[in-house]
């Protein structure tokens, strides 16, 4: 314990702030997992884009719930269930504030962003789209925002159109406008690309889509963690994100939908908590948002996600973003000095995601060697095979930053890439 503290203090002393008002040393101290060493080397976690680490506030929320306040929600007349319910619904209010939704009736807990997209495809899509209608997605989408629409297309005889990206990884807004027609019913795009870091112009996309009467779903998995989100300002119809990339637990995500749309949509899964009345002849549905939350929800995950959003909000997402951008600039400069390295996604204002290949080694070789030095990056197709195809590579390495990363992390990455060159070059 004493040794660990001593190490922490030494490390703290070397961390210079990247952005004013953001104390990254204090932030790191909130994430217990970061204090560990791997093979005797400090843990260098550069895979927050896949899943972020958890602050103590999130871990404590789970422990505290199960230690003091746990019961099923929306059911018991006893005080423990009321406590649990009020924490669960309190978390919904935190989520509402986090994305500035108008009402908590517009905030549905799902098991993740993937489920949220599937919910919209299976309810809105099945009810309001018919043969020949069009769904537009983009070339940089995660598989979660491709496959549900392909399944719907095959079932309903829809047309799936794909907006191309440019060589620097930008969403081609003009090409998108050219694809819109009177038959376009849904536009479903990422807020931020999980491979390229590109920030999509979702407000402009929404305006153009609304002009032809289409609905817009924004996949905010990589957006809500890097950019303050105001769904009323964006005016999108649906916004989805997962908890675990936002420093919260796995097994929970948020579906935001405009109330009038959610009201018009039929439920997806049937079960407890989503009904008003049940007889063998007929059931009627509960009010929003319960209509879409069949069965016992992920209670502890939802409550801990509230703690994660509170933690992020207290630090300030603008400040976190400023820190990440400063670090991204430093990292991109350093990466540019690595011989034989190609960086994908170079749009201005991109988020802190760096995907790359090296001419001397396969991304899996790179990740294996980096792992020897305790550096964690992702290697593979990143659930975005069309992006790999667009750039003509089978796989990429990806370093993605979170609020707790520092220049030391980047320096260790660069040093590890030096080892890669030495071994394979």
């Amino acid at each position, binding site marked *: 314990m004493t040794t660990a503290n001593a190490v922490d203090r030494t490390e703290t002393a070397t961390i210079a702030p990247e952005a004013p008002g953001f104390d990254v040393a204090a932030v790191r101290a909130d994430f217990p997992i970061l204090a560990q060493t791997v093979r005797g080397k400090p843990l260098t976690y550069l895979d927050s884009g896949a899943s972020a680490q958890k602050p103590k506030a999130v871990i404590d929320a789970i422990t505290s719930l199960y230690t003091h306040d746990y019961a099923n929600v929306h059911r018991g007349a006893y005080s423990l269930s009321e406590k649990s319910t009020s924490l669960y619904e309190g978390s919904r209010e935190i989520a509402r504030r986090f994305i500035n939704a108008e009402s908590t009736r517009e905030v549905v807990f799902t098991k993740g962003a993937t489920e949220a997209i599937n919910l919209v495809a299976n309810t809105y899509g099945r009810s309001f789209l018919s043969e020949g209608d069009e769904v537009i997605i983009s070339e940089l989408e995660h598989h979660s925002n491709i496959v549900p629409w392909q399944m719907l297309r095959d079932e309903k005889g829809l047309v799936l159109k794909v907006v191309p990206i440019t060589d620097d990884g930008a969403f081609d807004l003009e090409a998108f406008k050219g694809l819109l027609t009177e038959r376009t019913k849904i536009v479903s795009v990422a807020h931020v690309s999980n491979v390229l870091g590109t920030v999509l112009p979702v407000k402009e996309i929404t305006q153009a889509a609304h002009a032809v009467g289409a609905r817009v779903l924004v996949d905010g998995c990589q957006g809500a963690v890097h950019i303050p989100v105001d769904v009323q300002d964006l005016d999108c119809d649906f916004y989805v994100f997962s908890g675990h990339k936002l420093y919260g637990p796995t097994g929970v995500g948020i579906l935001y939908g405009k109330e009038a749309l959610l009201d018009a949509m039929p439920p997806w899964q049937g079960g407890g908590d989503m009904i008003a009345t049940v007889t063998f002849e007929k059931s009627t549905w509960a009010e929003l948002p319960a209509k879409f939350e069949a069965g016992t929800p992920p209670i502890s995950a939802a409550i801990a996600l509230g703690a994660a959003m509170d933690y992020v909000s207290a630090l300030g997402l603008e400040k976190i973003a400023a820190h990440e951008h400063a670090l991204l600039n430093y990292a991109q400069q350093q990466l540019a000095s690595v011989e034989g390295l190609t960086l994908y996604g170079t749009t201005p204002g991109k988020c802190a995601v760096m995907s790359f290949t090296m001419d001397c080694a*396969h991304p*899996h*070789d790179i990740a*294996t*060697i980096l*792992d*020897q030095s305790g550096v964690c990056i992702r290697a593979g197709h990143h659930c975005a095979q069309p992006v790999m195809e667009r750039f003509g590579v*089978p*796989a990429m390495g990806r370093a993605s930053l979170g609020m707790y990363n520092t220049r030391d992390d980047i320096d260790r990455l660069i040093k590890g890439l030096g080892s890669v060159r*030495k071994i394979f070059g």
Partner: protein
Amino acid sequence: MAGTPQETIDELAENFALFDEMEDKYGYIVDLGRQMDALPDSEKGDETKVTGCMSQVWIKPTVDDGDPPRLHFRGDSDAFIVKGLIAILLKVYSGRTAEEILSVDPAEMMHRLELENHISPNRRNGLVSMVETIRNYAKRLREKQEA
């Protein structure tokens, strides 16, 4: 390769023990891959592909007409470390009889060669698949001999 599979494992383990630096150890693994007589692209298809690997891996067996017959393997991967690991496995397994191949305890071999320490769990699954594929070929050959 002369000697028994076990002697080959001992020899490889001794070579690995010579390296103190991670970079040297991996350099040796990569060199073994480079020196290997790799599978030509024309033979890399679904039939020779091993499932369970994060990177792509192919292994192709041939059986000679010796008595008893021996299995010879050629393999390849698009990742250099994996290719090196294939080369190591083939030093142990290629040119052996079915009995010799099946006499090797895979878990013990991985432990001796410190392969479990050198590769990520995802990758290790790939390595396990490779060993399983080789052992399945040997089992089939043994069944054929018995029939």
